[in-house]
């Protein structure tokens, strides 16, 4: 039983790790890495929701059996991955521009906007 829940435990650990990185790491790149870890965790969660032991890929054309994994979570994950790539790319390019102008990626120093 424990083994079946393993994906969900992994998801919880990964989300905790990602959020830890986002809250406690001072380097902007590491914050983005933390975000990516959370994103992978959520994607893993979605995929493992639709998984069935021994199920086959949900392609109906000449399928050997109709015991298939759920296709919807996979579609969701695919969309989520695409969005995640766009977000990460944008965040990293922001990091680049910030580094060029501020000369640092330390989040304690990148706070000209406050109060």
């Amino acid at each position, binding site marked *: 039983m424990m083994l079946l829940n393993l994906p969900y435990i992994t998801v919880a650990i990964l*989300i905790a790790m990602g*959020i830890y990185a*986002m809250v406690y790491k001072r380097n*902007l790149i590491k*914050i*983005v890495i933390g*975000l990516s870890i*959370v*994103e992978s965790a*959520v994607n893993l*969660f*979605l995929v493992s*929701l639709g998984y069935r032991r021994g199920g086959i890929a949900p392609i109906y054309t000449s399928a050997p059996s109709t015991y298939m994994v759920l296709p*919807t*979570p996979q579609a*969701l994950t695919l*969309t*989520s991955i695409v*969005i995640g790539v*766009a*977000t990460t790319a*944008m*965040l990293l390019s*922001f*990091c680049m*521009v*910030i580094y*060029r*102008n*501020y000369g640092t990626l330390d989040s304690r120093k*990148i*706070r*000209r*906007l406050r*109060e």
Partner: protein
Amino acid sequence: MIWDTLMAHSPALVIIIPLLAAFGTPLIGRAGKKYMYTWILCALALTELMTIVMLYHVFTNGTAIYVMGANPYNLAIPPDSHGIPVRIILTVDAFSSFMAFTASTVALAGGIYSIACEHEQTGQEKYYALLLLMLVGMLGMVLTGDLFNFFVFLEINSLASAALVAYHVDKGVATEAGFKYAIISAIGALMFLFAIGILYGEYDALNMAMIGSRMQFTNLDKIAMALITVTMAMKAGAIPMHYWVPDGYGKAPGAISAMLVTASQASLYGLFRMSFTVFGISANHVTLGWFIIILGVLSMFVGVTMALIQHDIKRLMAYHAISQTGYMLLGVGVGLATLGTAAFNQYGLAAMEGGIFHIINHAMYKGLLFLTAGAIIYRVGTSDLNKMGGLGHTMKYTSIFFIIGALSIAGIPPFNGFASKLMIYESVYQFQPVLSIIAMIVSILTLASFVKVFHSAFMGPKIHNVKEVPRSMLIGMAILTFFIILFGLFPNIALHYLVKPAAEALASPMGYLSRVLGGGP
């Protein structure tokens, strides 16, 4: 015949027109700037027109549904699907069309305004493409009836907004604001997706109506509810998760600040829609309602007191945006806390009407104020109030628009802010007098704060030798002023056609559910 077809397909057209126009913009932009401006304005005007058609359709025929890829277009549940709505669906009730109207009006004004305001910037075709995508995100969020689709539009909106916030790099400071906004909205959206996963795992559905009707309200649902409501409140800019708001609004170009207001309101729509329709049937209304009320009161008070000490004109206005969001949260929160009791008909519905009326009023006057702030920055070149003064000598129209916006946000009659605030004060007073008194104090402080802005920017001796802003910027401001005066002098028009249907649609989730799950038309 053609009119009926147009009305029936209006929900899809409202999203498709700006989406296609957005991807066409970089291509048209190669032909020349003139063509691009015409293209953008046509797209925005057409979107506005389709929104009005949709508004009329929903007002006369009730909640409209539009199923992507189904034949006929309103076949929510195909006969061979065992009663499950399998396709992506747009569910447009009066509240959705109300929000869509607000968003597209502000976008139209912002688009016209941008033509003069951003004409010296490089990369304009990307700016306009992102502006249209931001509009697509907002419209999609308010029109969709599918949770995952909501997430996708939320992300489109967040990505486009974050890129636009950083559009004026401004020695990296605008990029810093964009980074913060992007990080916080990305983690919020991921938590939202996590909640969608939980709900999908439990109920095998992504359709909001389906999930709402199957809701068992287990502990997992409570986790999903916390993830969704807190995320939406954060995206709407409620204190204490508001830190991105002054950064983002403050550093964005003028027109984008105005549109960010409606983007936050689209998240506010998400909060209300999830609270009422998805969770509202089985959740504890009192807990959920008080969560929203407390966020609202905190936002109102802390927002306005922080605004008083600002000396950057747009940051100051951004804190006011937080403070005004508090009124909407308070109004609708009171409605939610009293839902299903006798008090709801006595004052709860009126509080909701006040809160919802305040959404459109706030979009108009705060949009106008951000546009005037953009005009000041365009001419003076700084956003620091300490370096301003005497602009009223030469920028006469801008100062008139500013006065109208400032009086309206402070709730001075006969402008529109008064009508909605009056409804909120009176109905909330019957619910809990203290909350109403806090709301009034906040209103006074708002006036005080705008007196400060008016004094330091427009009054005093002439310091800057500036001209009035170009005409297209004035037209953008005039559009929003028109609605402020219209809704101020004739509040019954807004109440009858926009606000009352919206409040009633939001307050009756069963109607929403049966419209989707009840099958055909």
